[in-house]
């Protein structure tokens, strides 16, 4: 059952530039376990959309199947949502995006949904540079089916039942980089200050933006020995840089905390400011991102934050050179060729 909150929100709460209150971005009451990392991520999504001044109906939220994939019910109840089938969110998002290039597409998936059954679609959504934000709520297990190891479970990670995972983990970030994704980031459900600006930047990025968010499963994978627990994550987490998202128009007044910080201008004029970047890392340079990832792994660190960003990629619509009008807005006038054309065609068959 979905339980609906009274949408009434206190009139005195502030509205954003497009006239919505934060409550307008919330969803039904979550039915996830108390303390589930996924709920915090939902919170960050609400926060980001509110701050980004997104009109809820201009965003479409899609997901697969899993506890993570349930979350779209728990945020943005004024947006159309689509809880598709297990592992197939990317293809449904692709079709939706093709039909209307003018909406914002937010895809939510789980590590089982993406790294196992959904691997093929994940890889090919990246290859097509689909303009969407793709968030994996990564808990290293199959929550909804009661905690089996997923393909992102680290080698040696101990399950609640006490068994050691003997398979190598699939690193979705590493894959995204190898496949040439234009926006690649990792975060932690417990780190809103990092996650919110990442989500905003991802939505501003005009192409495939991937965020792998470590999101502990308190019920099945938060035990000692698990490498996806709150405790383990907090202990080994490290960031590429402190990141701020600076929307377009907003004047840059804040003065740099240190001269090493990097400013990345995005397509729509907004920008990302990265202060205190780890050295030897250049967000623009895919190879340096790969190296950072590799040596973080070798050090046993979980590197988070923006990993790689190429603001100038060509998304699927520009590859296909589709009309500026959304395809779902076209009518007989644009779509049905003339009767003359048909007569010519018939003639060519005689």
């Amino acid at each position, binding site marked *: 059952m979905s339980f609906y909150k009274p949408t009434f929100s206190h009139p005195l709460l502030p509205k954003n530039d497009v006239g919505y209150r934060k409550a307008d971005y919330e969803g039904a009451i979550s039915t996830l376990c108390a303390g589930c990392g996924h709920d915090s991520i939902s919170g960050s999504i609400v926060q980001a959309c509110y701050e980004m001044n997104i009109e809820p*109906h201009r965003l479409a939220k899609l997901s697969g199947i899993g506890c993570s994939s349930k979350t779209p019910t728990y945020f943005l109840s004024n947006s159309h949502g689509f809880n598709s089938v297990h592992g197939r969110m990317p293809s449904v998002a692709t079709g939706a995006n093709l039909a209307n290039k003018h909406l914002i597409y937010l895809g939510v998936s789980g590590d089982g949904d993406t790294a196992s059954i959904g691997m093929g679609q994940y890889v090919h959504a990246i290859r097509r540079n689909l303009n969407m934000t793709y968030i994996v709520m990564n808990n290293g297990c199959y929550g909804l089916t009661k905690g089996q190891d997923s393909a992102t479970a680290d080698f040696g990670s101990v399950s609640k039942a006490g068994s050691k995972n003997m398979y190598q983990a699939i690193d979705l970030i590493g894959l995204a980089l190898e496949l040439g994704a234009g926006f690649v980031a990792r975060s932690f459900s417990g780190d809103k200050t990092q996650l919110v600006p990442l989500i905003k930047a991802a939505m501003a990025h005009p192409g495939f933006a991937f965020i792998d968010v470590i999101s502990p499963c308190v019920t099945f994978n938060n035990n000692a020995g698990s490498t996806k627990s709150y405790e383990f994550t907090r202990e080994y987490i490290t960031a590429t840089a402190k990141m701020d998202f600076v929307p377009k128009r907003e004047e840059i007044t804040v003065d740099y905390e240190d001269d090493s910080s990097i400013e990345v201008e995005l397509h729509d004029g907004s920008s990302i400011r990265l202060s205190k970047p780890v050295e030897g890392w250049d967000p623009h340079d895919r190879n340096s991102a790969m190296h950072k990832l590799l040596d973080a792994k070798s050090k046993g660190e979980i590197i988070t934050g923006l990993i790689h960003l190429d603001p100038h990629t060509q998304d699927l619509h520009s590859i296909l050179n589709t009309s500026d009008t959304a395809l779902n807005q*076209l009518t007989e006038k644009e779509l049905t060729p003339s*009767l003359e054309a048909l007569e010519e065609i018939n003639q060519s068959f005689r």
Partner: protein
Amino acid sequence: MPVGSGVNDFVVRFANVNGTGSASANGIFAKALFRMGLPISPKNIFPSNIQGLPTWYEVRVNEKGYLGRREGIDLLVAVNPQSLKRDIASVKSGGYLVYDNSKKLHDSFLREDINFIGIPMMAMCMEHYSNPRQQQLFKNVVYVGALAALLDIDMEVIKGIISDQFARKPKLIPPNFEALDMGANYVREHFDCPLDIRVEKRDKIGDSIMVDGNTATALGLLYGGASVAAWYPITPSTSVAKAFEDYSKKLRVDPDTGKKNVAIVQAEDELAAIGMVIGACWNGARAFTATSGAGVSLMNEFIGLAYFAEIPVTLINVQRGGPSTGMPTRTQQADIISSAYASHGDTKHVLLFPSTPAECFEFGAKALDLADRLQTPVILMSDLDIGMNEHVSPPLKWEKGKEYDRGKVLSAQDLEEVKEFGRYLDVDGDGIPYRTYPGTHPTKGSFFTRGTSRDEYARYTEQGDAYVRNVDRLTRKFETAKGMVPEPQFYGKKNQSSYGMLFFGTTTYAALEAMDLLQEEGIAVDSMRLRSFPFNEEVEDFIHQHTYVFIVEQNRDAQMRSVLIQELGIRPDKMLSVLNYDGMPITADKIFTSVRQSLTELNPKMDAS
């Protein structure tokens, strides 16, 4: 002592090697007969490979307009040494073998009862053309020229076709003409032409066209307003997407911006292809995918989602020989049960069965309308025979000013006006709910789409009663569909006989011919061509009005018969099957014999009707 079937009634078969350019020459031959006003039916019998294996092209000419396949080859053009022995054996006694005698035929190949027409094709080409590729290509044109003389085909017509084809490469026209004449002259010198099997100009074609069903289907989807296509290559459906793309390049480009009013994506597999279609249709575009059996099997889970979440889907299933990879280059109608009930749980899907290219065109557009109107998957059941072979067909027609049926979609305006919006409310009692596209209205009409059970307001629920209300509405919706899908077609006067014959799709040609054959034997049989599932009332009536009904279909398990029996509650013993499932299109003879056979079994006295 020539035999054959005489004027404007014979079968010519070409035995070629796959990948040697014979296709175009054979096509010219067929086109020429067509332009001489003769009904013809070409069939391509090709291997599942790209180059080097035997491939056959068969053309039946029939002045009466019988367009089904016919057994018995009157003239065979044999240019493939690999299959020569089998090919020679396949010629009907008294028939003709046109072959390349550049090398002498081995005696063991000779037959007393057929006529050998040897032409030194290769030799001629060697001496006439320098480069090997040309030698091979023009060899094909040489035999076309020879056939022109042997069968009395108007050489001007042939040259006209060639001129049309090479309009953009005029340099190629003269050498082609030379090859033609070489062939013609040689046979004129060495044999008395024309043969007893030959053609005469007629006017039996009218404004008909000759085109393959896949091209027509693609054009139907194009005219019908499909703006998103997602597909994955698979024989025999690939040419649907290919044709859609080719015509889109001309007909879907914005004249001002040069941008495309269409998005075509080659997906990574069939699951992704239908997923994209579902996403696009959910978001208000008209979208389709085209595949064959294996693809439909992979789409099963998604088809169930579209059925249950009520999302329009247009799926083109160009059937081939199954099961599994089966006979990928042969034809069958064997996906009927698996398409009608695709996916787990209680599901039923709308099916359309076209039988001519013109109908492929009509149904291509119709499928998009029905999918939007019924908010459910609609599967166009084509097959390799109609899809990939050229068929003589009425021209493609589009009604001036025709508008799409986008079904029950609420605009921002509507949302302002309606008292209450519930995605799955049965407002009109026809089982079809109203929907909205994402982005329509800032505060009204948004809903959550899911494959799980839900209430009328699209809220997740595990309440049994809500579930039952919902699936019973889906049953109601399927009832509504009966009144919307194409009604059956009847031939000749209705209800002349207590025997009925029911057929659909590509068995139609042979069935109609069989009706005449039976008539000649004094056996009257009424006929009905099924065009869709669910079955509308006329289908039910027809079956009830006849004591026995023959169901002609191209599969082993009499699938359509099964669906008819269980959906309409028919007594099985009155439903008699005429089956053909060897991968080749059924012939009138086969239908005729098997019908007569069962009639004799039914009433030994053989008093038909």
